């Protein structure tokens, strides 16, 4: 019997982790990625990866990691898979260490750990401040090894368009587009794993990479997959505002002692270093004495918003606060944070070793995603998901340095489960659905090429980003969200009048982007409507009109499905499995 064939879509940490497991277990893998996999968004992760190795004599444990994660996620995550992740984390760190990740070391030669947000333990292993890059490279190298052995075939510069579903709505493969020849082709597989990351592009400017559009997840949602907890979007408190994107300034800056402050008096125009201690307001330390600058991201972000917009104390009256490292020894900064200090130097021009950085919150992480069960399977048989593209591990707010571990763990669960599913799969009764799906996708392309309206896709995208950032991020009001959803409907109408400024049939980035834009618009409605419905405040989701968490009515997973006849989402809600840690109020 031929080896089971699995398609993995996305070559970041989750996708590569799945590929390695499948190749090791004798499966055959086709790996699809828009960019060469070594250039995936996982490279942008900076600060580190959590695992309760307890190498600092603090009495840390995997249970404590589990508790911090559930509490940090405001009791929205199903608990059993989170517990399994936290228990697997120390082994994952050991494995990465064996793969050659240059983790920082202690004088004894052991792994060094630092503190991150939402915990009181030094639990975060790190490779300078480019941990994601180093982890991705380690997995990329192992995949290249399997590729050399003929177990993995890469399709780089290919974009996933849709799943191929048979008459019983079982997944039989995918339809994808070659981003150079623009050829649309179908690929058969026994199971498919979606590991396509988050949807930052929906918010215009974010810390995400260009490819993080959520397009694949949205396409699958439109084909019948549940999309869960879409309304939970993490806004990272410390980003560098830029023209093309918001660049992340890692939480590790605060983990190593960085302090957030503003001048106590509005309009204080002195150079930051000449402002004496008594004239500075370290508001996080004052409001949260136990966790200080290391409160979870949603808490820090709302605090900065309050200081800037309510107290009007942003630097120079602008939406910015200081993140100060200048009191820390330069040698320590270089050894532990060099990568991120370089980013600030290169893109802003100031040396953060000498001058406090100016930062502001920015969209960073998609807690929601494709709904999956504990085997990482979506509701469509044969489609699995892992990494930021799914919703399983972070509840209403992700803790810093938990994303890398959730990606690798999710990939390690999805890979073997997909393979096991594939081995038990009965053959399809017919294969006409491949041809039908290819024609459907080609017709979408042809329609866009024909469309001769007045809407520029890039300008429409800018509008979408501004709309979603204003109404569906940090502070949410039902009236505004509902108005935003109305505008999304309007934008979907305007999309019919799209005008591609490029109609060529070779490496046409405009048509690829325009397809993504349509999927972004559809997914935006899931985010907006989910946010409008959830009348409570929980984790990253904050409504001043409903300021408290409401476990009685809302300790539930939001599940959106697409109603093709109405061209919009419909919703149902599923109770959260809180069988291990009873919910308690979240107070840092």
């Amino acid at each position, binding site marked *: 019997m031929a080896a089971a064939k699995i398609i993995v879509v996305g070559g970041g940490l989750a996708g590569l982790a799945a590929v390695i497991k499948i190749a090791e277990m004798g499966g055959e893998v086709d790996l699809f990625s828009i960019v060469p996999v070594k250039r995936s968004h996982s490279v942008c992760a900076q600060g580190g990866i959590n695992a309760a190795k307890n190498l600092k004599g603090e009495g840390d444990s995997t249970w404590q990691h589990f508790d911090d994660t559930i509490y940090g996620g405001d009791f929205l995550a199903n608990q059993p898979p989170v517990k399994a992740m936290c228990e697997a984390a120390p082994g994952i760190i050991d494995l990465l260490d*064996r793969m050659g990740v240059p983790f920082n070391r202690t004088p004894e030669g052991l792994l060094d750990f630092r503190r991150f947000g939402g915990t009181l333990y030094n639990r975060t292993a790190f490779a300078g401040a480019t941990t994601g890059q180093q982890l991705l490279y380690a997995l990329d190298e192992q995949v290249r090894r399997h590729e050399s052995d003929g177990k993995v075939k890469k399709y780089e510069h290919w974009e996933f368009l849709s799943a191929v579903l048979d008459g019983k709505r079982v997944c039989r493969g995918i339809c994808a587009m070659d981003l150079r020849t623009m050829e649309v082709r179908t690929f058969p597989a026994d199971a498919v794993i979606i590991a396509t990351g988050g949807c930052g592009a929906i918010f215009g400017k974010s810390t995400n990479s260009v490819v993080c559009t959520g397009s694949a997840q949205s396409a699958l949602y439109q084909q019948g997959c549940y999309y869960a907890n879409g309304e939970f979007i993490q806004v990272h408190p410390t980003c560098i505002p830029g023209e093309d994107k918001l660049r992340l300034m890692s939480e590790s800056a605060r983990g190593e002692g960085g302090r957030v402050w503003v001048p106590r008096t509005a309009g204080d125009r002195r150079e930051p270093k000449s402002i004496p201690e008594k004239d500075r307001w370290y508001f996080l330390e004052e409001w949260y004495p136990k966790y200080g600058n290391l409160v979870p991201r949603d808490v820090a972000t709302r605090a900065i918003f309050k200081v800037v917009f309510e107290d009007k104390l942003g630097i120079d009256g602008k939406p910015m606060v200081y993140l100060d490292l200048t009191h820390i020894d330069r040698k320590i900064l270089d050894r532990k944070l060099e990568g991120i200090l370089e980013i600030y130097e290169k893109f802003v021009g100031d040396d953060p070793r000498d001058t406090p950085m100016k930062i502001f919150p920015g969209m960073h992480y998609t807690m929601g995603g494709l709904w999956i069960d504990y085997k990482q399977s979506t509701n469509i048989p044969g489609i699995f998901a892992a990494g930021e593209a799914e919703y399983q591990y972070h509840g209403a707010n992700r803790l810093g340095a938990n994303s890398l571990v959730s990606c690798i763990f999710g990939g*390690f669960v999805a890979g073997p489960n997909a393979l096991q599913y594939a081995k038990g799969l009965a053959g399809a009764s017919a294969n006409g659905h491949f041809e039908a799906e290819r024609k459907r996708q080609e017709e979408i392309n042809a329609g866009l090429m024909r469309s001769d309206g007045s809407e520029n896709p890039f300008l429409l995208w800018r509008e979408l980003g501004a709309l979603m950032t204003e109404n569906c991020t940090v502070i949410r009001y039902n009236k505004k969200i509902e108005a935003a959803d109305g505008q999304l409907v309007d934008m979907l109408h305007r999309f019919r009048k799209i005008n591609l400024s490029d109609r*060529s049939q070779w490496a046409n980035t405009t048509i690829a982007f325009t397809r993504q834009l349509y999927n972004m618009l559809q997914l935006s409605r899931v985010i907006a409507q989910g946010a409008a419905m959830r009348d409570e405040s929980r984790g990253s989701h904050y409504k001043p009109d409903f300021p408290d968490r409401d476990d009685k009515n809302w300790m539930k997973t939001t599940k959106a499905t697409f109603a093709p006849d109405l061209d919009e989402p419909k919703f149902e809600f599923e109770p959260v499995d809180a069988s291990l840690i009873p919910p308690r109020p979240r107070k840092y």
Partner: protein
Amino acid sequence: MAETKAVIIKIKRQPTPDAKPSWEEFEIPYKPNMNVTSALMEIAANPVTRGGKPTTPITYDSNCLEEICGSCAMLINGRARMACSSLLDHLDQPINLEPLTKFPVVRDLAVDRSVLFENLKRVKAWVPIDGTYDLGPGPRLTMDEQEQAYPLSHCISCCCCMEACPQFNEDTGFVGAAAISQVRLFNTHPTGAALKRERLSALMGDGGIQECGYAQNCVEICPKEIPLTTSISEIGGQVMKQALTDLLRK
């Protein structure tokens, strides 16, 4: 009232791999702190040349926009560098953008750099672990060893070092500095060293390390400041030693 500043950008365009290249000039509104990628996004939103002629958005590779994914290497005013970390304020105008010259053009500023990934296979740039099951921690390393390995592991595969190298061309088939530096990284790792001999063999003969002409352009142009020439001389020594041992064993 402040005058609206403009930025003039000239871009070498080529619609297909076989087409003849031609230049187009664009004028875009200036904003502080703009980089080359944000200028290219601006053109995509309004694809009209300076002369008022409608044209197509520019095709180029990009992803992270913070100089860590290695996608957006191109010639900017004649020098190979990353478009995302090239701030317009630091560039002379008009700004000339061209594709890298040592790699096949896909379209406009996008080129095919898959040769580097093939070279990484050739030199077995990985640690040969037994498997991903739980086998306990990896080898202990001193802080010094970590600090040696980390900068080498920083290579973003942008290929600027290969573009700048006079020896990297079709005639020599030279593997280039990036791959050689990865050989140093993996030969230094306690487990990675198991493949040392195979890696060094891959660097012998045509296209191997002997093609290096010591121009030192690689280390000068590397956006991540990787000590590439140190890697080349270190690996040059290892290859020599290996070649001698192989000879004596015959």
